[in-house]
């Protein structure tokens, strides 16, 4: 176990290095002239030169990379052109909102997706199976921005059951800052008003965000359940009188979940991608909305800082996924 963790940590460092290399290429090499991008088309030659010098763009690439890496290690992701604040501070401020949305959406996807996949597999070729198939093909085929719009149109526009903007009602103060996750903070500080409002606000965006991942998880659970149900040990268990939920959950699902975990890890990555769009549609003040707002200003440091942060987070999540294998499957040792 220890060996594996050390091994994986080594890999982690390598991949993080790769990620910084790619984001360096994206921010310093591909755009041709980042300085021109920063100052805009109308700026005169003098300002351009000044910015170039300021950014160190007149230095050779290797030196630039060194400076870039030094900055990253000390937590400096540059200054946002739009907000004029350090990107790292901006991201820190918007991070909790994104985390909260992603976590709730992820919980939806797992809590609904796994039982639905089991149901579809157990009742194969029944109404439930076909319904879940249509439901999940819908999930991977629906663009997040469109399902978001349709849901806003119905639940806010026509029914006015749910708000469609922000994390809280305008007149409600955020709960005492503990983690930055409003639901958790309001629970911890006993602020029921804020709790109610934040749950009310998070429901629609979380549903929209979770749908695609829900679909992927349902399909994967169904497929691996079907594969497991054909295995001999299941037949032995049935012949030994084991049946019903116990057979499906304790005997089949447990092993069907092992391949599902990889998919779950990848789907968390797609969830972060989807969060960018969902936050924009629902005016959710998270990192995704921040980065989309930056696109309009061609705010390069902000976009690259975000990309780098997400990639590192994604690598860490996949590391955790890898490690859970060893917990779930005793056959993999050492």
């Amino acid at each position, binding site marked *: 176990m220890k060996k594996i963790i050390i091994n994986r940590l080594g890999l982690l460092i390598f991949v993080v290095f790769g990620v910084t290399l790619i984001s360096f290429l994206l921010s310093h090499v591909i755009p041709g002239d980042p300085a021109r991008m920063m100052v805009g088309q109308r700026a005169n030659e003098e300002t351009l030169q000044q910015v170039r010098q300021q950014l160190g763009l007149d230095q050779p690439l290797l030196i630039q990379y060194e400076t870039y890496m030094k900055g990253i290690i000390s937590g400096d992701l540059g200054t946002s052109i739009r907000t004029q604040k350090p990107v790292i501070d901006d991201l820190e401020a918007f991070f909790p909102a994104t985390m909260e949305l992603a976590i709730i959406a992820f919980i939806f996807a797992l809590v609904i997706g796994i039982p639905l996949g089991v149901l579809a597999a157990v009742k194969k070729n029944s109404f439930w199976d076909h319904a879940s198939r249509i439901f999940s093909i819908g999930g991977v085929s629906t663009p997040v921005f469109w399902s978001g719009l349709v849901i806003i149109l119905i639940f806010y526009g026509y029914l006015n059951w749910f708000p469609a903007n922000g994390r809280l009602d305008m007149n409600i103060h955020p709960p005492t800052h503990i983690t930055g996750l409003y639901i958790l903070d309001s629970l911890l500080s006993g602020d029921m008003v804020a709790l109610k409002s934040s749950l009310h606000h998070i429901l629609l965006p979380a549903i929209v965000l979770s749908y695609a991942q829900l679909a992927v998880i349902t399909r994967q659970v169904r497929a691996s359940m079907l594969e497991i149900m054909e295995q001999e*040990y299941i*037949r032995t268990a049935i*012949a030994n*009188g084991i049946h019903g939920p116990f057979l499906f959950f304790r005997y089949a699902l*447990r092993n069907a979940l092992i391949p599902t975990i990889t998919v779950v890890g990848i789907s968390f990555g797609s969830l972060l991608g989807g969060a960018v769009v969902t936050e924009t549609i629902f005016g959710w003040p998270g990192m995704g909305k921040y980065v989309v707002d930056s696109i309009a200003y061609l705010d390069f440091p902000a976009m690259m800082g975000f990309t780098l942060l997400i990639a590192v987070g994604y690598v860490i999540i996949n590391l955790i996924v890898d490690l859970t294998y060893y917990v779930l499957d005793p*056959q993999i040792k050492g």
Partner: protein
Amino acid sequence: MVLEMKDLCVDFTGMRGKVRALRNVSLSIEKGEVLGVVGESGSGKSVTALSILGLLGSNATISNGEISYLGQNLLRLGPKEMQSLRGKKIGMVFQEPMTALHPTMKVGSQLAEVIKRHRGLSKKQAHKLAVEALKEVHIHDPELVAKKYPFELSGGMRQRIVIALAMSAPPDLLIADEPTTALDVTIQKEILQLIKELNDKRGTSVLLITHDLGVVSSVCDRVMVMYAGEVVEEGKTEEVLNAPSHPYTEALLHALPDLADPEEPLKAIPGEVPDLQNRPAGCAFASRCPKAMDICGVSVPALEPVSKNRSAACWLRRDTY
């Protein structure tokens, strides 16, 4: 009579239409008896076993016949009643011990789970009995083995555990589908001895399915030979093996490796099992039979008594008894 099967017909629906996998198969097992069912793969012996426990796939239908267990018609039972019968009254052991156990559950827990179910015991009591059950199938150090995962054990050990699972209720009938085929020769012998021992000690009836007449001769009281979904010969083991009535049984015996002469090459039965989809008009074995007559290609011989304890389905025997 523990189990009686009468005129069972099973059809499979596949890509190319319906195939009849079993044709009027009848068998009976007395209390404490060991019945061997022999045949090549595709002869329908596994289908026979699976149909008893209602484990045929959804593409199979039982179109005719009756299976009764202690006088109770199993084909009339609902899914719930069938579930409570499986393992508890009729246990089953499959061919492949390597894959027959839950790969990520400790073997002791798997046993305890089944015991708990059949006897309605607490978890703790069930665990104690699980260790006992391991001891009964001659596993040394059962306490330690109970804490292991299947992948940590050898094939022979696993098959013992599978047998312990099947015998845990304990059932009145044990169905063993090729229980030794996947094992090494020395271990095969031990497993057969174990089955025989459990049969002697507890009086459990056994339905032993195999393609190996050697296995039959060492443990079975009676033997039934199947070919292309039909019973072709049935009788007391010594009688059938010493003087087979059906040319197919004869061919099977002939194909047995001669232990006295290990140099001799293995003899296979010439020809192939007929395609069940396009079953020939007469006797299914006719095309491979060295003694085939004109009538064999035209009309199917019925399974009829050829001597006191013996039946065969062959035109050659029609006039002798």
